[in-house]
């Protein structure tokens, strides 16, 4: 009940502050998820992390130099050091033997370390609390002023505009930079532009999420979105939606308890969205592939059961019904799975339950015959056409019999000229 009223309080915007926070989260989602999609596809997610950590000394320096908390001034400082770190990463990778990942790690820790030193210094002057500078570390959405929101709006507007204008260039740069260069695109310019936009997105986002976790705002929404779509435009839109959703949820939690920093909650929420996508996304999700495997397993179980019944009937043409024990004796199977397969086959009308066991129906017998036929045809194919010894073909046929389509079966039969016997001299039933 308390929760419900808090939710309704929150979303009725009775508190004007809530409106600012939500607007801030919208702009944060737009700017970081849009640009993050390209960083993600270019496999440059770590670059975003380096930038995020490197803006801290810039913010502190700007504060020390100009003695103001005006966001534009602080953003200017953030921009300078954020850019500088990426510039250094670039130089170090090109001029030394240090590889990109190490260079990024070095830049990240050096700049962040410097930032913490400066922040501690500012705190010791007793100024940090009222300046709210420590909020830049883990983010405090509630501390955003209307002016800050306007700044975020302008910056995310710029980012969206540039991405729309350069959409096809950024796409090609992400997919095939070498081809882009070969076809004469200004690669250097485009890369610089993307880095600049990333720095901008980070700089406006840190107030809400904080420098420590800002990179997650660039990475997690696109990572979640990638599971749901194979279209780049849809992926950008979806990742913006995920970014905003995560932002709302995180802001709400930090609203319910004022001591909660916003950043960790927002990032936890977007990470949950990734986890959810990883499990639930159609096709690519774990649940979907688990279901697919399970269905296939059940199909194999049913087909093997029909096959066993067919084999038993082949062996004892005088009998109609066979017990589970007889089936288990003929083929080693998990009794639980056999019982399940039999239930399913009865439901499908392929097998009938009698007093003294189970009996194949006409349709069940046809299907059992088909599986046995494919099995023996495949064994023929392997021995005749592939020169594999007759005692080496059974296991392969066990797997292949469940996947061969009627068209392939026909081709196979024609290729082998409709043989009567398999390599083990068993009759191939037609």
């Amino acid at each position, binding site marked *: 009940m308390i929760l419900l009223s808090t939710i309704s309080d929150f979303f009725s915007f009775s508190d004007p502050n809530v409106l600012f926070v939500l607007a801030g989260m919208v702009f944060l989602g737009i700017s970081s998820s849009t640009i993050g999609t390209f960083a993600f*596809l270019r*496999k440059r997610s770590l670059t975003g992390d380096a930038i995020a950590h490197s803006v801290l000394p810039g913010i502190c320096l700007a504060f020390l130099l100009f003695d103001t908390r005006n966001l534009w001034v602080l953003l200017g400082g953030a921009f300078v050091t954020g850019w500088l770190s990426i510039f250094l990463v670039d130089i170090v990778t090109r001029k030394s033997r240090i590889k990109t990942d190490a260079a990024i790690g070095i830049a990240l820790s050096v700049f962040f370390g410097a930032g913490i030193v400066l922040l501690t210094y500012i705190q010791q002057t007793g100024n940090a609390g009222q300046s709210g500078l420590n909020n830049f570390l883990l983010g405090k959405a509630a501390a955003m002023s209307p002016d800050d929101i306007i700044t975020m709006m302008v910056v995310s507007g710029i980012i969206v505009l540039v991405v729309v*204008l*350069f959409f*096809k*260039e950024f*796409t*090609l740069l*992400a*997919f*095939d930079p*070498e*081809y882009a*260069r*070969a*076809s*004469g*695109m*200004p690669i250097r310019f485009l890369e610089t532009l993307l880095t600049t936009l990333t720095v901008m997105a980070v700089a406006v986002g840190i107030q809400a999420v904080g420098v420590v976790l800002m990179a997650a705002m660039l990475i997690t929404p696109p990572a979640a979105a*990638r599971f749901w*779509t*194979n*279209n*780049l435009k*849809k*992926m950008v839109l979806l990742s913006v939606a995920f970014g905003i959703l995560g932002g709302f949820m995180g802001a709400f939690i930090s609203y319910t308890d004022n001591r909660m920093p916003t950043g960790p909650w927002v990032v936890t929420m977007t990470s949950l969205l990734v986890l959810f996508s990883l499990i639930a996304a159609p096709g690519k999700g774990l649940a979907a592939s688990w279901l697919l495997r399970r269905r296939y397993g059940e199909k194999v179980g049913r087909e093997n059961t029909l096959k066993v019944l067919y084999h038993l009937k082949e062996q004892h043409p005088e009998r109609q019904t066979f017990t589970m024990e007889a089936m288990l004796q003929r083929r080693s199977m998990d009794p639980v799975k056999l019982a399940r397969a039999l239930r399913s086959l009865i439901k499908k009308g392929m097998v009938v339950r009698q007093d003294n066991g189970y009996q194949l129906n006409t349709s069940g017998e046809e299907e059992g015959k088909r599986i046995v036929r494919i099995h023996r045809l495949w064994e023929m194919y392997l021995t005749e056409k592939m020169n594999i010894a007759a005692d080496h073909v059974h296991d392969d046929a066990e797997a292949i019999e469940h996947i061969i389509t009627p068209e392939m079966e026909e081709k196979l039969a024609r290729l082998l000229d409709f043989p009567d016997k398999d390599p083990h001299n068993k009759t191939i039933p037609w």
Partner: protein
Amino acid sequence: MTIRAEHPVIEAHDLTVSYQRKPALWGVDFSLPAGVLTGIIGPNGAGKSTLIKAIMGLAHPDSGYVRILGRPIDEVREKVAYVPQRGSVDWDFPASVLDVVLMGRYRKRGLLRKLHAADKELAFHCLEKVGMQDFIKRQISQLSGGQQQRVFIARALAQQAEVYLMDEPFAGIDATTEQTIFELLGEMRKEGKSIVVVHHDLQSAYKYFDWIILLNTQLIGSGPKSDIFIPEFLRKTYGGKLNMLTSVGELMAELEAPLREKN
């Protein structure tokens, strides 16, 4: 042996390219006539891809230069189409077959401009030429190797260039696709296009190419196939590494000072 072409479409002058100071190409010098199908042939590590990249301006020469249609590559990029190795990109990218072929039109439309309906039509025709028109909406991650290769070729066709440079378009594809692609290259040659292909199979090389470049870090031969495709040159190309060159190359890799003065 180098046989020169009269009005060359591509000419390389004393081209030397190295990676980490170790030369991958050494003093390569040749010229190619227009409207022929050229094969760059050589063993692994012979510098074939490096040569294509140097011609495209993607690898920077330590010395020497390349002219295409008589000009530096940067002035004629619109007339030159490049087909990278298909392994050079991550095919798990959110794009359809059509999206990738349309990338061949980006440069023509220029920065900030939208593609037209005519671009899509052209892309469709290019896919038809490589026999991929039924896959137009297919997600690129679901393509087989041969299909990926054909999509890359269709993208180059969409550039409507005069010169085509292809890096190993026949690597890891089935015989039918190879046949399809070679037929297509033959048709392109009939239309007067100049095509340079990095290739590793000697048998099909003799069958399909008009002009052959034999390469093993050094240029072994360049000319019409009947002049170049002879046992002596082939032995030189494939008969082990050229010993002196290799050992000097390794020395250079260890050298701490710059190899050459900057020009």
